[in-house]
């Protein structure tokens, strides 16, 4: 493992609380308490991931996402609830994911792991299969199995599921899914809702309380499944 993480937060208590836990998980941590300090640190050293609080003393965190993303392989936003518009803007700016404040450490670790996997998979060609404990998806043969049982999906359903699987554990915005399914970011999001509902009916035990394809209200969807190491 040994991901190199840049933690950008002006609140010392957060830095103090997170650093030892993240270090105990094998990550290397560098803290920066402002936007300028973060950019300076990122220019000096290659980071695998930046954890970015949006409320910084010297700049709106969203403004430095673009630059930070050029310097680090992944960016995760620490954001307050109720600010979907801000989250969507941050994701459009290039952020890979977000964690709602306040967060449990397990949730943060899951996001970090997902971001690490994602940047590892981004190699040319990418992966051809997604295998988690319950779900198996073969991107080439379009074979989908839930607990070993074959599931038949329409091409659009498959396109959506493939996108979610390729970002497993990470949020995927409505916009990204509309491009994946309809090749048009401005397509009616009603189509998307309907196809996600269909996917849930086929994949979830209880479609009204999904555990696999989670809703991120106002932002997008998240596949809650971690791929098994093969």
């Amino acid at each position, binding site marked *: 493992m040994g991901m190199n993480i840049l933690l950008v937060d002006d609140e010392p208590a957060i830095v103090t609380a997170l650093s030892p836990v993240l270090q105990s998980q094998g990550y290397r941590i560098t803290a920066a308490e402002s936007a300028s300090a973060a950019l300076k640190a990122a220019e000096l050293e290659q980071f695998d991931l930046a954890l970015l609080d949006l409320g910084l003393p010297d700049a709106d965190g969203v403004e430095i996402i673009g630059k930070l993303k050029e310097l680090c392989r992944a960016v995760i936003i620490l954001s307050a*609830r*109720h600010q*979907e*518009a801000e989250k969507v803007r941050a994701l459009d700016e290039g952020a890979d994911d977000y964690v709602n404040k*306040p967060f*449990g450490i397990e949730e943060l670790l899951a996001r970090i792991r997902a971001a690490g996997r994602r940047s590892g998979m981004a190699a040319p060609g990418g992966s051809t299969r997604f295998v988690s404990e319950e779900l198996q998806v073969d991107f080439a043969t379009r074979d989908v199995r839930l607990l070993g049982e074959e599931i038949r999906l*329409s091409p*659009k*359903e498959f396109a959506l599921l493939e996108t979610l699987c390729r970002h497993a554990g990470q949020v995927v915005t409505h916009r990204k899914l509309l491009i994946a399914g309809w090749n048009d970011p401005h397509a*009616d*999001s*009603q189509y998307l*809702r*309907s*196809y996600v*509902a*269909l996917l849930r*009916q086929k994949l979830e035990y209880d*479609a*009204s*309380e*999904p555990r696999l394809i*989670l*809703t991120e*209200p*106002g932002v997008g969807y998240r596949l809650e499944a971690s791929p098994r190491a093969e």
Partner: protein
Amino acid sequence: MPGPTPRQRLASLFRDANAVAGDALIFTLATCGTYLAQSWDRPISAVLIYLVGVTAIGARSGLAWGLVAALSASLVYNFFISEPVFRFSTPSADEWIPLIAFNASAIVSGALAGRLKDSVRLARTAQEKNAHLLRLSDELQRAIRVEDVARIARRGVPFGRLRGLEIFLARNGGFLPAEGGSLLETADLLPERDDAAQQPIGQRILFLYGAEGEIGLVRFALERGPDPYYDMPDLQGIAIILGLAIDRCQLLERLSENAAMQKSEELKSAILSSVSHDLRTPLTAIEAAATSLQSFDQSLTPRDRARMLETISQQCRKLNRYTANLLDMGRIQAGIPDILFIEVDVIEILGVVLAAIREAYPGQEIEKHIQSDLAVVRANPAMLEQVIFNLIENAILHGNSEQAVHVVVTQAAGRCVLEVLDFGPGITADEQPLVFNKFYRSRSATYREGNGLGLHIANGFTEAFGGTIRIVSPHFEGRGTKIAVELPLTDVSVHQVGSWG
């Protein structure tokens, strides 16, 4: 009392002509009567008849016409009636008496008639001025703000020689125009050099008085006129009425300011007492658990340690929800712009809420009855999440812990209906309208740990989404509370998922 129009002038000419014709008729009749009496050799009656005629004309048309009639009567009497007929003669002593009598009666009756007419005109003018004042005070009753007073007062002009008026309010040693404008010094308001020959309009300034003395002044613009009284409205009276109306409006403003202030004071103390209770309780638990772990880590059993850690994170989640509620209350107070609203599927949001509820209240049984696959409404997703979370949490806190909370989603007549049902003691009819108030806590015995904001926020957000919220209690065998949220569906939800793909 505006100036006469051409039409009115014509009418008054016509009235004058009529009056002259009437006088001529009276004069002619009197002449005939006199002539007849004279020819029947009744000279005294003849003179008396003429006298009556002249008196009548004097009384009818005033002094001038009376004298004209008296003079004519003298001439006619001398020429036609008294000997020698058809010739003017030097009147004898006998004939002087009728001549003097004619003129005297004409003078007396004319003067009397003139005075009468004057007082009638005076009375009518006074009545008009009174009516003007009454109308003004009547209309001013409706004024609520000082600007209304100024607007209504201006509607009453022009009246007679009053061409306009401006009201100024006493402020900080100067005077502020009631209908907006910058502060004026007293010197700015004093009458400019009054050159009667040059200016057709003059002005007069009167102070306005309220219960506590001078509250402002009114500047009247007046047209110059020859008559000092008739066309001049009762400026003093107008000033008194304006003063009273402005005083009343200012009192009203102060009263409503006081009421608003008191309300915000009440809210502040409600917030303070809520914060001190709902923030301190979880903080106390966290502090106790954390310090115990610090001090007695070695002597605690692993189970106790786990319980304390669980307490800490549970209370943290509770604090988080409470601060979210406080922030939401602020949002409702500030007004929620619908720019935040997008198309949201109620059922999808319900799924998100249920996941959070299962985490916050593990072991709580929830029964779902969901009729459709999609129910799309216009709302803010996070706020809708809060509405549904608060309703279910409320049902858990006030319900019967032995029984499941029911969540029902149906669609009818273009609306999505989400109902949350508990089987607790219910809410009494007189308490039902109160439960949506800020910081209202149920009096019922099963009250466990609500913060008095949940339903207030659910109600405020639902209304912002254009929906309604209502309570049915009891709903089942004399027990239980059902809270139903209705939201208008967007037309896209008419499609059902089954028809796709």
